[in-house]
């Protein structure tokens, strides 16, 4: 199985996990944190394997850092509501 196909399978699993959390009836931090973590992981996989940043680890770390900051801000705002 190629790297891209493994990435696709992982994205499907992560998407199914997001849907399972949303359908679980959980609320508050128990919903917000895992759903945003899964979104961040999906973004990381797309950047690494679909967009090819696996060959540029420093750039991948930079994007990951920016996305982590964005996700944490999303989480803070979502939990403050």
């Amino acid at each position, binding site marked *: 199985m*190629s790297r*891209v*196909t493994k*990435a*696709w399978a992982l*994205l*499907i699993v992560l*998407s199914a996990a*997001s*849907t399972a*959390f*949303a359908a679980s009836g959980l609320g508050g931090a128990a*919903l*917000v944190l895992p*759903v*945003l973590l*899964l*979104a961040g992981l*999906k*973004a990381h996989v*797309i*950047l690494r*394997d*679909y*967009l*090819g*940043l696996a*060959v*540029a*680890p*420093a*750039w991948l770390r930079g994007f990951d850092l*920016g*996305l982590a900051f*964005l996700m944490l*801000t*999303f989480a803070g*705002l*979502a939990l*403050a*509501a």
Partner: protein
Amino acid sequence: MSDAPRSLPASSQTVPTREEETKSHDEHPPGQLPGELLMWVLILSEIAVFGAGLLAFLSVRLTDPQGFAEAQAHLHRTGAAANTIVLVTSGWLAALATRAAEAGQTRRLRLLLVPAILLGAVFLVLKGSEYADLFAQGIGTETHAFYTFSFLLTGFHAAHVLAGMVLLAVVGWLGTPKAVETGAAFWHMVDLVWVLLFPVVYLL
């Protein structure tokens, strides 16, 4: 559809051939950004624009969390979740098409891009059915701040999907590795934005 390289018009003799582009791509220096720098500038810009939009959405939600929750209940969550699968699968096909282009497999890359484009159309149909349902309920952009943001963010994203479908068709017709890589990068950016947008607008 032939795998033979297309001959270039006289005015385009400075454009690199497929073999030259493939060689160039294979020799990509490790550690540097793959593909076109301008495409990465676009990707960063789009993440910044949608990120700012989502931050504004979540900030305004602080003023009326109950109203946002009630408005969110009218969206098609199942359709949006299905659209995530649709887009990541389309992105997978586009990524495979990039590899096929690098291998000089023009017929294969086109056979991969056609379903990738069709999945983009599936995304728009599902999105369109959600909009039609909302409009049928009398819901519009001015009904509530939630809808102002959700229509703006998802509509702008849908416009990118449409543009990406056209771009994939064009690069599929061109068939060069550099063109396909650039078109696929745009498509992955559309995919990336959706995985950030979907949980914020539909799930939280």
